[in-house]
């Protein structure tokens, strides 16, 4: 099957600034990819190039086998981070206009807009002007505009920004429907929890380069072998007594119990047995690597340039290998 998106060696500069450097990426049809990275990393530039709003200085981008997104725009839905609407237009007219621009008939666009507005709790706003809606309502309308054409590729740039929890849940429901329909999803966000929840594969861009392209499942299998999470059977147990163990570097109490940090070079298996010997556990486990930890480690602590997947692996090992990270 043709990939939904194939990017090969694209580079984009703005004057002297390199926005994207040698980016390769292949996204199969029906996949859900999370695009993460700090502000200014190049995510939006990459998305704009995918959308053929900007064009790369070199390299190629293929969308559904077409040499340019311009040839496949009717099959793409895009919700930009900076999104607006025509203030004086009614919601219905705006959505029909967007639907028609994306190759749908007025009747098709009207029908889908009506259904989606109802699904997102906006059944009665069709005749209202966009300027009369609240910010949250307008964001939901803009989301509807992005999927009005039943896209095969849906690119969402920070779709939940500024939304209340109920709206976030409604949107997630519709996004899940789009996934089930078979749409390929590219999801750009700063909120790691959303990426972890929705995405199958995580791509991280930092300083214009791809520094991570891993399945979410693979990332979840990674464990931090220097941190153990303990929830005691007896809520009144003296957890600070664990500090007396030779393998323990420190104990940090939390609402459920504590987080025990081990000295470098300690065997996690021995440590688990030793801890369980002191405090009877209701639950004891090695800490999972969170996407946020990877993100912060790659972006925050290193400071330098992470040029490749090798750098990522080194950092993941740094998190999981007790000796190497010391």
């Amino acid at each position, binding site marked *: 099957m043709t990939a939904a998106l194939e990017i090969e060696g694209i580079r984009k500069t703005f004057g002297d600034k390199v926005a994207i450097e040698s980016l390769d990426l292949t996204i199969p049809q029906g996949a859900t990819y999370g695009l993460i990275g700090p502000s200014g990393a190049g995510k939006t530039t990459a998305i*704009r190039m995918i*959308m*053929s*709003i*900007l064009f790369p200085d070199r390299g190629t981008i293929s969308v559904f086998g077409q040499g*340019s997104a*311009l*040839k496949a*725009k009717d099959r*793409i*839905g*895009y*919700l*930009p981070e*900076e*999104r*607006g*609407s*025509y*203030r*004086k*237009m009614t919601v219905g007219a705006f959505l029909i*206009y*967007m639907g*028609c*621009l*994306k190759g749908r008939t007025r009747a098709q666009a009207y029908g889908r807009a009506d259904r989606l507005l109802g699904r997102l709790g906006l059944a009665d706003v069709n005749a209202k002007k966009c300027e009369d809606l609240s910010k949250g309502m307008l964001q939901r309308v*803009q989301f509807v*505009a*992005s999927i009005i054409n039943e896209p095969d590729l849906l690119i969402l740039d920070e779709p939940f920004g500024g939304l209340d929890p109920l709206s976030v849940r409604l949107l997630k429901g519709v996004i899940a429907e789009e996934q089930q329909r078979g749409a390929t999803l590219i999801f750009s966000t700063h909120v790691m929890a959303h990426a972890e929840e929705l995405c199958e594969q995580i791509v991280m861009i930092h300083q214009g380069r791809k520094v991570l392209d891993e399945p979410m499942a693979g990332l979840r299998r990674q464990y931090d072998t220097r941190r153990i999470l303990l929830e005691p059977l007896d809520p009144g147990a003296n957890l600070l007594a664990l500090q007396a163990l030779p393998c323990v570097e420190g104990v940090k109490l939390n609402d459920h119990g504590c987080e025990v940090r081990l000295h470098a070079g300690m065997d996690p298996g021995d440590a688990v047995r030793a801890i369980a010997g002191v405090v009877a556990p209701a639950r004891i486990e090695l800490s999972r690597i969170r996407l946020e930890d990877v993100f912060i480690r790659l972006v925050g602590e290193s400071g330098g340039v992470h040029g490749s997947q090798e750098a990522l692996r080194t950092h993941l090992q740094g998190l999981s290998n007790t000796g190497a990270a010391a």
Partner: protein
Amino acid sequence: MSIKLHRIGLIAARDYKAAITSRAFLVGLLVMPVMLLVFVVLVPRILNSRSPQVIGEVAVIDGTGKVSTELSHALAPAEIARRRTVEAEQSPLKPVSPASPAPASGPPIPRMTLVQVPPDTDVATYKSWLIQRGDATPRHLALVVVQPDAVTRRPGAVAFGSYDLYTSSKLDETTESTLRNTVRAALIATRLRTQGLDPTAMATVQQVFQPESIVVGPAGDRSASRVIARILPFACGMLLFIGVMTGGQLLLTSTVEEKSNRVIEVLLAAVSPLELMYGKLLGQLGLGMTMTVVYLVMSVFVLAQFSLSGLLDPMLIVYVLAFFVVTYLVFGSLMLTIGAAVNQMAEAQALMPPVIILLAAGYSLSGFIGQAPNSTFSVAMSFIPPVNTFAMIARVSSSAPPPAWEVWTTLLISVVTALLVVWLAAKVFKVALLMHGRPPSFATLIKWARMA
């Protein structure tokens, strides 16, 4: 790059509908006719209707001893009214329908009574007669001092003497003008009588009503009007200017608005930058065209009221519309580019002056070129873009239009210019659309054009 016409059509239709239903456009559409109506029809009527009739005395120190009688006669309101009627009849702008003689029009006729002052009166002393309290009656309007040689020349002199006029500080300009005309008529009449001639007969002899000229052409005769011939180039230039300014301004504001409220990127998810640009250009072109056609229809209607619609060559209307399209494409593209490059209207003001100056220069030329349509300057201007369209439309609408090949050459040059400017604008537009932050200079715009 694939460009889908239906997308361009959709964008154009939305922009056209949004603009034509906007209050700004409707107000703009009505501004010119309303202003014309106000200044040409209503203001004079209001001014005249509100002017009270001037009643007062005019003193005369007649150094000749002969002019006073004639002046007294000439100051009679009936005589003033008669002179006004004659002047109106001789005007080439007189309405031809209805065919009855033009009635005396203008401000109320002043009622001026002549006060004869002995000729040996000292003028320097008598001048104080004009200084009165504000509410004093009768009002002392003016003092006319007729020089002794005003009727009979001094021996050896070539010219006659004249008169001195002293006026009250409260005398209005219209009454003063009426008084001057009256004294002039009285002096001429007295001079003629002194030489044994009949002033009435002389006035009749000198009276020549201006006929409407008939232009004889292969297609037959048609009437012409010198005034219309003088106004037409200017009016056509104004039509181009207003149409282009309206379309261009709306193009600028709608683009700035789309950019500032971040709807641009939503649109670019559905259409290419070029489709967006062409759609917007086309939408406002339709708007400018609507305005131009409305004004053309109004103009034809007004000319028909004066039975002058025959003066409008149908080809002139075709040329106006054709030149409007190419002029709009040049200036509209420039304004669109500026709209795409800035973030708010205040920033656009900094980049607009060169475009407005060019446009105004073209418009200003049309009046001059209409007067001398075949001078070297006029011919040269009609081939130099972007003012060539204004120059050529002025020549085409003048009384001596250029040969057809010159018109078509100008049109060809304009089309090539328009294509070039649209192409350049598209390059900047693509880059500028997503640029935010500090407003660009012209150097930056050129840099963006190179980047694209």
